[in-house]
């Protein structure tokens, strides 16, 4: 039994609420990146390490366009099809020749692609990050209830993330394209035998995934600024998301993304307070950062040791 020490401050509910919202925001961004990964893997059986680079490209393209057209939201609307086209080009020239190869070749080829894309961004935009200005009406804060205020842009990110998730859900489950996507995931050969141009379907899926990752990059850019290597940080977490959720499963990606976003954010915010309940202050402050950095990987290890196929493995594979 842990002995509670006296003088523990009560848990700050406002802070808890704000951090939970931050966790949801991170989770939705992770979902945007992970959904593209899991789509591409589920249907094309292709491991795309360079998916994070599309997230980075989205941020940079949106940054430049914001300065060019002077409006962030308009810049996002123009940048989305551009990242889609970039995704298509990557599919055409790097991914397509690799489909028939094994996963090792996918990993190495797209690893090379990361080096190429990161350096290209360095060449075009220079080594420093680019801050993206927001329109005035998005700069402010919104009072929700009591004395809880949150930046309005963070609410926009959450709304956009939820809208994208809902749109994707509708697309995959209720449209002809979605039907083809699901059919392609179950049995590629049969779909092409039925007269569907599977090559174009693949390219379309790839471009769609690129747009989703690009959107996530555009949404985060005003908060963190667009920087080289930003994609390489999020891609690993996105991998953890799709592993925990079950590779190829959209539902799994959604729930795992929210779970991991919340655990990571709340762990970083509150783990040291939690440790202080049964440790000395110093010990808690020393061990909490190390453990909170590893929390999502520990979660992954636990999930895998219980369910090696993830929480929501797709039904047919």
């Amino acid at each position, binding site marked *: 039994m842990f002995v509670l020490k006296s003088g523990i401050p009560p848990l700050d509910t406002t802070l808890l609420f704000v951090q939970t919202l931050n966790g949801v925001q991170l989770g939705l961004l992770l979902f945007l990146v992970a959904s593209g990964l899991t789509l591409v893997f589920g249907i094309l059986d292709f491991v795309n390490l360079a998916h994070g680079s599309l997230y980075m490209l989205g941020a940079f393209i949106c940054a430049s366009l914001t300065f060019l057209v002077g409006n962030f939201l308009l810049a996002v609307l123009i940048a989305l099809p551009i990242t889609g086209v970039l995704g298509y080009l990557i599919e055409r020239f790097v991914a397509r020749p690799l489909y028939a190869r094994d996963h090792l070749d996918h990993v190495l080829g797209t*690893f090379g692609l990361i080096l190429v894309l990161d350096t290209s961004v360095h060449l075009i935009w220079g080594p420093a990050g680019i801050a993206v200005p927001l329109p005035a009406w998005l700069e402010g804060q919104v009072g929700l209830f009591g004395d809880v205020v949150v930046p309005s842009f963070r609410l926009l990110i959450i709304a956009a993330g939820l809208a994208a998730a809902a749109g994707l859900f509708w697309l995959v489950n209720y449209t002809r394209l979605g039907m083809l996507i699901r059919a392609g995931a179950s049995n590629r050969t049969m779909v092409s035998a039925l007269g569907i141009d599977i090559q174009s379907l693949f390219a379309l899926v790839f471009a769609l995934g690129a747009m989703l990752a690009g959107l996530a990059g555009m949404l985060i850019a005003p908060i963190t600024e667009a920087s080289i290597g930003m994609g*390489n940080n999020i891609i690993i977490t996105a991998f953890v998301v799709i592993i925990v959720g079950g590779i190829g499963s959209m539902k799994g990606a959604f729930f795992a993304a929210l779970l991991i976003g919340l655990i990571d954010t709340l762990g970083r915010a509150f783990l040291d307070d939690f440790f202080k309940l049964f440790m000395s202050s110093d010990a808690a402050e020393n061990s909490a950062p190390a453990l909170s950095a590893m929390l999502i990987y520990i979660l992954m290890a636990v999930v895998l040791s219980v369910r090696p196929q993830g929480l929501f493995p797709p039904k047919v594979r």
Partner: protein
Amino acid sequence: MIGFSRSARINIGVMAILAILPVFFWWTGQTFYLSLATRLVILAIAAVSLNLILGYGGLISFGHAAYIGIGAYAVGIPAHHALYGGMDFIASNNGFFQIALAVVAAAVFALITGAICLRTKGVYFIMITMAFAQMVYYFFVSIEEYGGDDGLVIDTRSEFPLVNLDQPIVLFLVSYVVLVLAMWLVNAIVNSRFGMVLQSAKGNNDRTVTLGYNTYLYRLTAYVISGAMCGLAGALLGNFATFISPEMMDWSRSGELMFMVILGGTATALGPVLGAAVFVVVAQFLSELTIYWHLPFGLMLIAVVLFARGGLSGILRGKGS
């Protein structure tokens, strides 16, 4: 050379060049090239260790840089405490202790993570090994005592009786001997009954299981051996660079190790060494040419994956794509 096959002669030739050339650099005072060769040999040890599980075992580990980091910190942390005090039970400059710590720590990490990773297969395995390596990366980033992100300077190299690692040529020769021993060990393992089972599981796991072999245990054993060997390479790298940071176990480092093995040719004795040699030399050459050297380097990587199957040793043996 009667009695040696073509590939054995190539192996002996390449290894002889790798031994003689750096000694020549040292003789003529070209210390820069000597240190390049030392780096090359140390990375070759790591690539040889990866080849055991990737090439012969078919286990695509994308987290091998973690073992390099663990090995390097196993030198750096005792040296740090020997200088600044604290943690008396590991504070030491004794080389035997540090090397043992590196090997044991890497082996234990490989045992724990391997036990989990090997329950999965295919793309799951790739991503999980990568995620565990990233976990170690963030672990060391968050420990401020050892410099966090900024890394840790090793003030004193590992101390051995009679062998002074502060002399570049000695460090090179030690690394070279370790490389030869590692290659010998991998070769002995591969040609043993154990290695046969390992390769058979790569070819067809179900069939091997049906024959009565617990392939999980065979693979886990190989995974631990490989991790321990790579930890040793990390201890040498720490001694070579005298500076360690979490950056050396970034996932792009793991990707580079994989690339060395593929470039040289998987499941060959000399492949990883050739791959490491070409990698280090080309990276050095390109980075002197331009700061944007990752661009041609990445294009080269893509080209190798698309067009040069079988790697360099395949081409050397006349079995190019």
